[in-house]
């Protein structure tokens, strides 16, 4: 018997079934802009990366004119993938299978034994299929459809609701880069990210730097905007309390934590700027990639700031439950990410129970959860 219980707007099976997963891959992840990396990941002419955008494998390569090109990673001969995960080409792209060769505009320029084997080949008909690529807020995005509108048609309306950070001036903090799997559907992870109600409860010991009661949030198109001010005791001595050098002027402090559709969370705070990128791997498995940018200053400045702020964090940040901070228990770890992962996986575990049933949803604090489900539903109904 299939479980027809509802998660408010979507049925529970939307969070567990392969069929829903496949439809989302086609109707959401193959038809929207996909985060592909930071601007500096493709630094020099010839550098390339490949990304999976829903059902499409796409490679992005920088030409000698420093412009990015994106193509579907499919040789026009037998369909073999042309490029590996990351690499370096100079002027041409050659398929490993039969050495069909393309230039960086995707034009087929060389076919071995062309005269005897392909006597009437019109090479101009077999160029690589283009995709669309652009850079926004120092992030590279691709869209499988070369005729998709400009990236600003997708992000333009949410932009005014994002932080005043000059992202291009911040630099990546390599130690903060992470990638991990969560045993939960990607929507469970998104819904946790945009659930305003849980902030004061699951994270009662870990996100005390911010004043959740004053949070302002709303959906702007398919994207979720969220802002909250710094907590008074944290703000009062912010130059001392911030864990890292400030990236915003004192009159513009706050935490902007939007969730861009589908599944790209940003954390734009007083002292860092980070991404939280959710990729569905299966109906009940997701990958999260995190990367962080910080102020472009010396390691010594970071060290001093860490020493200055340690008193505040030792006093104010605790696990949800009392216990050993270094134990494996996320509820005593004092790490809000560990708390979130724990909550997501604990929720996913319940979904297959025949007795599973959700209760009432918080009027304001869980409204974003219901709205996100509606957006997913609209995409799948299209």
């Amino acid at each position, binding site marked *: 018997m299939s479980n027809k219980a509802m998660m408010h707007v979507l049925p529970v099976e939307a969070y567990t079934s392969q069929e829903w997963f496949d439809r989302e891959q086609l109707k959401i992840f193959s038809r929207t802009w996909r985060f592909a990396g930071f601007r500096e990941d493709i630094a020099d002419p010839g550098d390339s990366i490949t990304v999976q955008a829903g059902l499409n494998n796409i490679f992005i390569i920088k030409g000698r*004119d420093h412009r990015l090109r994106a193509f579907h990673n499919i040789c026009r001969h037998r369909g073999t993938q042309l490029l590996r995960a990351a690499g370096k080409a100079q002027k041409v792209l050659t398929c490993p299978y039969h050495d069909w060769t393309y230039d960086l505009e995707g034009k087929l320029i060389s076919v071995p034994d062309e005269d005897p084997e392909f006597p009437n080949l019109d090479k101009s008909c077999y160029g690589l299929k283009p995709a669309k690529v652009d850079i926004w807020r120092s992030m590279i995005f691709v869209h499988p459809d070369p005729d998709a*509108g400009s990236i600003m048609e997708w992000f333009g309306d949410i932009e005014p609701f994002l932080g005043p950070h000059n992202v291009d001036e911040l630099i990546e903090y390599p130690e903060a880069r992470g990638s991990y799997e969560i045993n939960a559907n990607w929507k469970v992870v998104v819904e946790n990210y945009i659930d305003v109600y849980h902030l004061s409860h699951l994270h009662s010991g870990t996100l005390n730097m911010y004043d959740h009661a004053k949070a302002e949030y709303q959906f702007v198109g398919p994207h979720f905007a969220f802002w909250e001010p710094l907590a008074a005791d944290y703000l009062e001595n912010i130059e001392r309390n911030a864990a890292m050098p400030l990236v915003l002027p004192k009159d513009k402090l706050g935490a902007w934590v939007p969730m861009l559709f589908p599944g790209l969370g940003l954390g734009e705070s007083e002292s860092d700027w980070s991404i939280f990128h959710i990729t569905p791997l299966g109906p009940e498995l997701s990958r999260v990639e995190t990367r962080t940018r910080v102020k472009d200053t010396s390691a010594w400045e970071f060290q001093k700031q860490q020493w200055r702020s340690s008193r505040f964090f030792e006093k104010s940040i605790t696990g949800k439950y009392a216990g050993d901070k270094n134990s494996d228990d996320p509820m005593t770890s004092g790490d809000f990410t560990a708390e979130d992962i724990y909550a997501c996986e604990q929720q996913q575990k319940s979904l297959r129970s025949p007795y599973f049933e959700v209760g009432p949803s918080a009027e304001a604090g869980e409204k974003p959860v219901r709205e996100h489900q509606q957006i997913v539903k609209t995409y799948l109904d299209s």
Partner: protein
Amino acid sequence: MSSEFYPLRISEICNELVSSDDDQIANAKTFLFDVPESLQHLFTWRAGQHITVQLRIGDATVRRAYSISMSPLANRDVDTENPTFSITVKRVADGMVSNYLLDNMKTGDTIEIMPPFGDFCLDPQLNSRRSHYFFAAGSGITPLFAMLQSVLIAEPHSVVYLLYGNSDVNNVIFQQQLFALAEQYSQRLVIRHIFSRPSVWASDYWRKGRVDSKSTQAFINEHPPYAQDAQYYICGPDAMNASVTNGLLAIDVPRARIHQESYGTVSPLDDSVVSVAAKLTVTLHGSRHEVTVSKNQTLLAAMKAANIKPPFSCQSGICGACKAQLTQGTTHMVSHAALQDNDVAEGKVLTCQALATASYIELIYP
């Protein structure tokens, strides 16, 4: 497009460059014009287009094409809200028209002007996100200045990169306006100056030399496109346009992204071909005319001699106003700066430059 001339009154004149020897002598001026309400519909323009002025100097009637040096979005009349247009004229040594305009014309004078036209344009798009590269030398800045104003005002997600060559800092047209724009749009506008003969004290420039293929590539290396839909606009003498174009093509910029207009020095004329006398059948405004063309006579001259009134303007192959479609026969163009190679391949002809090389020719005006 109207090919009539209309007398327009000069409403204001601004000095852009003054002589370093005598600051009473202006070497470049911007002329703003009053357009009466009844002519407004004819004098709308797209950033990058030009107008033609017609002057009577002594016994001669002369015409010159000048780019409109302002975006239609940049400057509006305070009363009517109509855009006010301007041309910016730089003195050319021994240049009959530029010297006449700079030394003789005063506010309140009228000049005969043919309405704006031209295909070297940039139309801003509100939701587009593009990187616009501009390569200018000397007075070639004028159409590019109008274009970059349009982008900054009406294409808010796009970025502008200007590489601008002059002999020295005293010859930089729009220096002050560019400085102000760079302050106002600091996140979206990059300006780099190249001087060929900088004064020894000068420091405020990017490099010494010219706008050419090398400096173009260095500029792009230093300022790679932020928005990935990159477009390239070039306006200067033919030699510069060719060098910049080659520099762009050499780093794999697709040709379709390169836009250019020739300005100032025109390439040497190709008078290597011997022309022949011919019969010309021309279709203009839907009527057919039979015209006799003599050897070494341009098709335009032959049509004017036969009292047909085809459109034309600069008569030097630069403006493109006299363009027609060749449907039969062959011609040779002495110069065709206003046409791209593919235009020529499609049979587009600048009648002011075309000599007959076949005894029977047919032309159609669009």
